[in-house]
């Protein structure tokens, strides 16, 4: 028998959340959801959690198990117990709690609605629209999303900034940006390039890591960044990336000083004065001019070859 600790909070009764513990047999093969069912059916019918399909399709049973968010229906309890010596089940992070393990999904859905998650095809096509396989493959990293919220729960950027759209909504956004039939892609990219959009991702990779159906929200976000730069959409994030890119193409290495200078501009650099002064004092000033690497001509050849390849239409 193992004590399983479960987060409890009933807004009608409790002022503070607390944990309840039950002793349950944790045999190999039992999922965390199985354990919750046993508690709900035989020990305490007031324990609340969401679930529907019990087979990792519906996405309703996402919760935090020993600190990692995932679907309770496809997470085995024994390996967690063996690894950590304990079992703790909590609601998702970054979302308000309605009761016990039930999260308020309202903020999640709001972000999804904000990206206009529907096809905007312009004129109706005359006949069936055949999407070439290569174009269809682009959607692979986003289209399997089951909207469970696991990625949002672990998103470190969202944790620091609740206005950030977050990985699930942006993966959904990419699903339409990369859809051949969508005519609004450019407007979409402009919208997503604004504050709290694609450039607010800190690339921490939690979303790619925890997604239970192997969607890669971070890759989708990065693909949209590339498309927005290609489309010439100006934003602070794009400015920084372009400044970085240009210094590397010039010398082969990053020029920290030139990147900051170009990305922030004069006013931005002035705002960094307090940091800069101490950096200079410690002799930590980055080199103003970067020595070119020996093979810089080779690098430029590769850049040209890559450009030629792109012109032939071989995109990502």
């Amino acid at each position: 028998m193992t004590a399983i600790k479960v987060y409890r909070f009933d807004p009608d009764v409790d002022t503070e959340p607390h944990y309840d513990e039950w002793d349950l047999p944790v045999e190999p093969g039992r999922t965390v959801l199985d354990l919750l069912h046993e508690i709900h059916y035989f020990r305490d019918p007031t324990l609340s959690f969401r679930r529907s399909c019990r087979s990792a399709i519906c996405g309703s049973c996402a919760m935090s198990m020993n600190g990692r968010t995932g679907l309770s229906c496809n997470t085995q309890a024994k390996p967690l117990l063996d690894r950590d010596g304990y079992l703790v089940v909590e609601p998702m992070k970054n979302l308000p709690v309605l009761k016990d393990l039930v999260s308020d999904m309202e903020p999640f859905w709001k972000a999804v609605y904000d990206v206009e998650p529907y096809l905007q095809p312009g004129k109706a096509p005359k006949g069936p629209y055949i999407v070439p396989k290569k174009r269809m493959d682009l959607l692979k990293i986003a289209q399997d999303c089951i909207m469970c919220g696991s990625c949002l729960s672990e998103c470190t950027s969202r944790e620091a900034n609740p206005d950030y759209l977050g990985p699930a909504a942006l993966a959904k956004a990419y699903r339409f940006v990369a859809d051949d039939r969508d005519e609004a892609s450019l407007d979409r990219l402009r919208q997503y390039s604004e504050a709290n959009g694609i450039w607010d991702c800190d690339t921490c990779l939690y979303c790619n890591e925890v997604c239970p159906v192997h969607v890669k929200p971070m890759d989708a976000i990065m693909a949209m960044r590339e498309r927005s730069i290609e489309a010439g959409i100006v934003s602070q994030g794009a400015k920084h990336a372009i400044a970085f890119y240009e210094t590397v193409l010039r010398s082969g290495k990053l020029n920290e000083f030139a990147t900051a200078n170009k990305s922030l501009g004069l006013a931005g650099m002035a705002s960094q004065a307090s940091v800069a002064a101490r950096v200079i004092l410690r002799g930590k000033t980055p080199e103003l001019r970067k020595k070119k690497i020996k093979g810089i001509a080779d690098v430029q050849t590769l850049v040209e070859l890559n450009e030629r390849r792109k012109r032939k239409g071989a995109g990502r």
Partner: protein
Amino acid sequence: MKYAYFPGCVGQDSCSELDTSTKLIAEELGIEIVELEDATCCGAGFMQDVDYDLSRVLNARTFAMAEKLGLDILTVCSTCQFNMDRANRELKDDPERLAEVNRMLAEIGLRYNGTVEIKHILWVLVNEVGLGNLRRRVKVDLSELNVASFYGCQLIRPGYLHGYDDPDRPEYFEKLIDALGARPVDYEGRKKCCGFPITFVNEDASMRMNAKNMIEAKEHGANVMATSCPLCHINLDMYQGRAEKASGRRIELPILHLPQLVGLAIGISPERLRMKRHLVSTKPVVERVKRKEEAAIPVRTT
């Protein structure tokens, strides 16, 4: 133990103390390194934002140079590690893509066969130098140091790429800290983001992350933090003042690069490790460590 050493851009520029300390410990510990002086930047994610395919080709050029030397690549930066590892994986897993990249590399007289591995120094220290070996080489008593590790996101996630640490329970760093005779501090923030990638986009959010992790580390008893990523070091050290401002809390947590911590333990002086270069003073760290022989002198009581 011989590696093609990829120092990374920041590791040789604003954080050049990282390069210095890496070379010092490599020599002491018998890790032979051949520096890839002609390598380009890994892209750090920013090059990839502008042109993903180009950054992969440029990384392939670096891999080809290491392959020519018959060596695997050693990195000292979580960001270099991820960006190169991912490019390498994409080339190894897709022969068609590798062939296409090779057609481009052929124009500059190079070829990549997909035989190179990319390894972070943390993994090399634990798996190849070995914890027992490290333990025997410790000359300085670090037992007064409560070290909070800071992995840098891209060294542990995604687990399916790296295959070293469990991304939920990473322990390489903690094992290393323990072997060096210091005390590892357990806290959630060690796995989280320092905020650096968005410092120039949303400094407020970045500083909130930055402050939260350091404050959490201190609340768990840390008196020093060590990181395996120089980009994290920029946020944690250079921007610590801004993080203090954003959080309204004094933090004053010295931040070491991983090789500096190792160097300190095996008897390399703080001066040679260039610990005075940091913005947050490392003096409290130096004061807490003592050479083992000094520590062993019995103190006469009156």
